[in-house]
């Protein structure tokens, strides 16, 4: 490489304002970090945008900003999370995700080694999910004006012929399926939060779900609703669907898969696992008579071994999500006011 000796330019260990200044430092950063890891012909062309070919079908575009503390957590980091998050949003539309764009905002002083690690993780996640990162942008903000790194990704995908998935299609009698244990991601993050630290083997479930969705739609093309219960957890996501579809839901608490350690961590912090975030799970709603078949296909996939039917869509003009508790009583599963805070009482 013919770049100027970094030692003559000062420290290369941290990001400084020149890396966002549009000059050589920025060009070097883009070439040495982003292009190197994301290598593909679109990026290599070095244009302002990417020109891509799409197969026939309706096009889905979805965008998601990622901020998280800590940046590196058990089971993942902000890099792979930024890829999975958007790939999953596209997949939940019933589409096959194909391309991603990436916008990165760095805070002055951010360690270059951390950036490399994050970008590498993004590249691997994209490769594993079978999507290409075709264009991107980097900006640097002054120290104190960002939280290390923010990553925004936009995904583009195409819906195959005959697939029609949407949040307003749940009807009374439909089965509600979740692809696996809930709350893993949120608990893994909390275990590393300052002043809350506890030790656990719990890892984030962050994963790209497009492969699983592909297999599910191949088996049951008539799936009505797909959604990933990220922020706000299962509880918030089911409420969104109930409102969109103007239906109620009746869940069975005992059928909802949850790992023992996640349940224990939630008890310890006074949290309800129904509202704890997931990054590698999905909810599927389908006709009752297709449910067993769908479940079988899901359980054959490594990301949905613990898939379970957790409830039924019911008629309810108030669009309430209710739950039969393990004790045999009933309760409402409502939207939460905001993020759950750990509590002592």
């Amino acid at each position, binding site marked *: 490489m013919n770049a100027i000796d970094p030692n003559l330019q000062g420290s290369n260990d941290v990001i400084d304002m020149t890396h966002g200044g549009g000059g050589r430092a920025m060009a070097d950063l883009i070439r040495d970090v982003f292009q190197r890891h994301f290598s593909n012909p679109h990026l290599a062309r070095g244009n302002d945008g990417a020109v891509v070919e799409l197969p026939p079908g309706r096009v889905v575009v979805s965008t998601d900003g990622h901020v998280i503390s800590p940046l590196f957590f058990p089971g993942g980091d902000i890099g792979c999370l930024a890829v999975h998050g958007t790939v999953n949003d596209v997949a939940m539309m019933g589409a096959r995700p194909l391309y991603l764009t990436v916008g990165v905002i760095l805070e002055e002083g951010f360690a270059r080694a951390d950036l490399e690690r994050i970008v590498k993780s993004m590249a691997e996640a994209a490769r594993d999910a079978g999507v290409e990162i075709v264009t991107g942008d980097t900006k640097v903000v002054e120290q104190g004006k960002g939280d290390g790194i923010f990553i925004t990704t936009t995904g583009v995908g195409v819906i195959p012929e005959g697939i029609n998935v949407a949040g307003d299609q749940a009807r009374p009698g439909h089965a509600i399926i979740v692809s696996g244990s809930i709350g893993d991601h949120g608990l893994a993050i909390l275990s590393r939060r300052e*002043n809350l630290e506890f030790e656990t083997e719990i890892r984030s479930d962050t994963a790209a779900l497009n492969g699983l969705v592909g297999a599910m739609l191949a088996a049951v093309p008539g799936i009505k609703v797909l959604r990933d219960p990220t922020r706000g957890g299962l509880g918030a996501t089911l409420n969104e669907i109930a409102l969109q579809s103007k239906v109620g839901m009746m869940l069975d608490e005992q059928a909802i898969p949850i790992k023992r350690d996640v*349940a224990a961590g939630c008890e310890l912090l006074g949290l309800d696992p129904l509202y704890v975030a997931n990054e590698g799970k999905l909810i599927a709603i389908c006709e009752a008579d297709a449910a067993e078949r769908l479940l079988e296909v899901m359980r054959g996939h490594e990301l949905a071994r613990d898939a379970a039917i957790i409830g039924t869509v019911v008629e309810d003009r108030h669009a*309430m999500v*209710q739950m039969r508790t393990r*004790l045999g009583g*009933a309760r409402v599963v409502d939207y*939460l006011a*905001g993020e759950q*805070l*750990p509590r002592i009482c």
Partner: protein
Amino acid sequence: MKYIDEFRQRDLAEKVAGAIVREARSGRDYHFMEFCGGHTHAIFRYGVQDLMPPNVRFVHGPGCPVCVLPVRRLDDAVELAERHGVILTTYGDMMRVPGTKQRSLIKAKADGADIRMVYSTQDALKIARENPKRQVVFFAIGFETTTPPTAVALVQARREGLRNFSVFCNHVLTPAAIQHILQSPEVRDLGTVKIDGFLGPSHVSSVIGSEPYEFFSEEFQKPVVIAGFEPLDVMQSTLMLIRQINEGRHEVENEYTRVVKREGNLKAQALVSDVFELRPRFEWRGLGSVPYSALRIRSEFADLDAETRFELSEKASREVKSCECPAILRGAKKPTDCKLFGTVCTPDNPMGSCMVSSEGACAAYWTYGRFRTRDGRTAGKEEIVA
């Protein structure tokens, strides 16, 4: 989870529920006040009321430390963080409680005040050690359960010579509050609040023991059963209360024997009395001024008392008019009796403390109850399911 899962078993719940249905006499009603928010939470979260016959009802009590803290004290905490520039540390429960003009700690934090949520008083001490040039105040709230950990922190700060640490003490006492409720005209004279017995505090009692309740059962002729916080504990204790009433007894019984002894935790009690003393009066939200119902830091520890260290201004603290939290905390009204409930006041935009804490009666009604329409208005009577 040992000692947790066993007390949530469905088959046992069905057995105890069966016994309650059989033994509750159809000719009368049973009104039991669960003093603690922990019980309120268990009743709603597990749908315990659904397993009760219609003549067995729970009356929600004031046992939620967040709910009973008067607005003035919260405003003081906001002042400490904003005007005195301290690092204010507190439990997560306090963060969203609205003070005067709906100002909460979480809003003060958004405006730049240094407010940090901690899980333990040990974390507050750690923050003080790591920030020797800053004043670190621990905003202490809670009943007898939460008081000993504050006492440990004060003793430790003294031993370590942590001069930048202090405590803003708001610890309150359970027996004084129960007595106040029993003496209130609503219970005693008017009979507007009917209480036939008490589900007694579980974790408070692990510290103070079951003995302090003996006075009430005697003086007010009401049975008390100390009840654990798991749903089966609540149900078994309800059964024990029904039996006492049916047999004309009014005793203190202990269902939560796996943790509560008659004398309580003597070591914790001794430590608390080394560090704290009774306040002659303390203001409770909902109950008003209650004599000898709270603790303050003893003069020996005055240098670690935030109320001594910082001069707190006089303020015109105000609760939202027409917020019924006070009456709800006394058991005199239900959340659905409040005009604000579900209209102006929701967990997203709480007007009163009962809508904030997950143990508050309003929040529990809102989150777990089935009596309102999705558009946020309280449902009409015909729509009330539970």
